[in-house]
């Protein structure tokens, strides 16, 4: 879902938010890169849910605790407060019901970490404005008809959703096209314009 050059930076930003030894659920764990990073660098008690069976089998063969499942339907099976952090990395835009998923994340975890591509980035805006076409960029390589990303949002949109469900934003980081962090002290409009990716740390 996120085969791009910023992936590593994005994962490092997520990892930096996590307390060592924490209980972590990674929703959309892919081939397990993040869970492995967290296991090695933060000694977390990590679990994963991944939609693709291939990804799951790869994770389990790497000794990670991962099950096949769908963020939209399977989060209901987890108990309240089961984890310190629930991570949704580059997956929110591919869920059918992002609002419900986000609510579930904050039910299961004390904190939620959500990263997503920012649809408010100036390149995206420019593509629509000048070419009148849905943007196809290096980070978002799909055409509109075959994309798994059915619920794009901008950083501003996401902040509003957080307000809607009563989630508190503890920190927000935007990464620019070079994968460099844009500091939180910048105003929202700035992050929304220059941030290609966003990483939010939320709590109830």
């Amino acid at each position, binding site marked *: 879902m996120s085969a791009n050059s910023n992936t590593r930076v994005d994962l490092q930003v997520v990892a930096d938010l996590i307390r060592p030894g924490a209980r972590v659920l990674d929703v959309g764990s892919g081939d397990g890169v993040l869970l492995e990073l967290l296991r090695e660098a933060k000694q977390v008690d990590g*679990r994963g849910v991944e939609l693709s*069976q291939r990804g799951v089998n790869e994770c*389990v063969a*790497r000794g990670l605790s991962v*099950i096949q*499942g769908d963020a939209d339907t*399977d989060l209901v099976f*987890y*108990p309240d407060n089961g984890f310190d952090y629930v991570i949704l990395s580059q997956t929110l835009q591919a869920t059918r019901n992002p609002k419900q998923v986000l609510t579930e994340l904050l039910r299961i975890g004390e904190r939620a970490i959500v990263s997503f591509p920012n649809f408010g980035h100036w390149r995206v805006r420019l593509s629509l404005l000048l070419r009148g076409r849905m943007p196809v960029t290096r980070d978002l390589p799909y055409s509109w008809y075959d994309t798994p990303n059915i619920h794009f949002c901008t950083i501003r949109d996401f902040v509003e959703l957080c307000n809607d469900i009563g989630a508190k934003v503890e920190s927000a980081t935007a990464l620019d096209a070079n994968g460099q962090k844009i500091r939180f002290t910048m105003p929202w409009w700035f992050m929304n314009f220059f941030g290609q990716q966003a990483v939010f740390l939320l709590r109830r």
Partner: protein
Amino acid sequence: MAVLRALKPKSEADNPSSKVLRFGPDQPLMLEAGTVLAPFQIAYQTYGELNADKSNAVLVCHALTGDQHVANTNPVTGKPGWWEMLIGPGKVVDTNRYFVICSNVLGGCLGSTGPASTNPATGRPYALNLPVITIRDMVRAQAMLVDHLGIDQLFCVLGGSMGGMQVLEWAASHKERVFCALPIATGARHSSQNIAFHEVGRQAVMADPDWLGGDYLIAGKRPQKGLAVARMAAHITYLSEAALQRKFGRNLQDRQHLTFGFDADFQIESYLRHQGMTFVDRFDANSYLYMTRAMDYFDLAADYGGRLADAFAGTKTRFCLVSFTSDWLFPTSESREVVHALNAAGASVSFVEIETDKGHDAFLLNEPEMFAAIDGFLRSAARAQGLS
């Protein structure tokens, strides 16, 4: 020779060619059926060495018609152990590293007390006088064996099908004694369809005139035809439609044309007949009734107020479940139900579904993806347990 082989299961029942642990009248086993079994015996095999702190024991639970000879040549059939592909020196379950235990289940016919064993009260085989045995009873008996070996906690309990049911039972009723659990191609209960197939098998056995109400051993007979039919029907459920079509199709057996008779014209018929005939040489018919009944009775959630998650409440055991896409006896949905219950209990759980057309039997076959998953799971658990 055939006669000798046919007699072998009887002698194995009382005096198995494996290790055997005998429990006297002072160590009775309380059965779920409400009666006490004493004395009784458990036949088992071990491989590898138990380490100094007794933390490297792996218990393998066998399926319906399996036995304790998991990784050595079978004394009755002369064939390799049923899971030698997985278990042995340098294998995924490495016997250079782990102390592997496999016991014949209670009610079996290869040395653990079962219907073919001699009833000490009468000097004759138990036949149907043995109380019905449940999965929980089997596990209780295994726990007594594990006690005898001086092991507090098993590093791993693994098994497929009925073996997987025992794994789930272990994980539920002996939580603190199981560090990690690998239930493969199994479910937390036997489905209606599965009970139905078992009932067909039992009726086939009991319809054989040589069954004699279960007392065939005393009469020196064996209900071979009935048991063979039972095996044939069951065997179909272990395969998949796609695999049958791929392997046999409508191919004819050693002939160019249909014979317009009821001989085995088709390869699949010949194959099934062969499966039936070889099975009766190695298995006791009454034991088949008891084994199928034990699976039918299994319903883990029912033992915990109907809520499967409660069976695993507070568990610290690490789980890895494996299912196969073409398994219609224990389809993936059965494993997923267990996974959801484990999630609800906050357990550590992995779950892989392996793509294959080999059906339920895939767990006994060369499935590299299954081996990779088990390998990764065991290695990570061994690290956590300090076994590396």
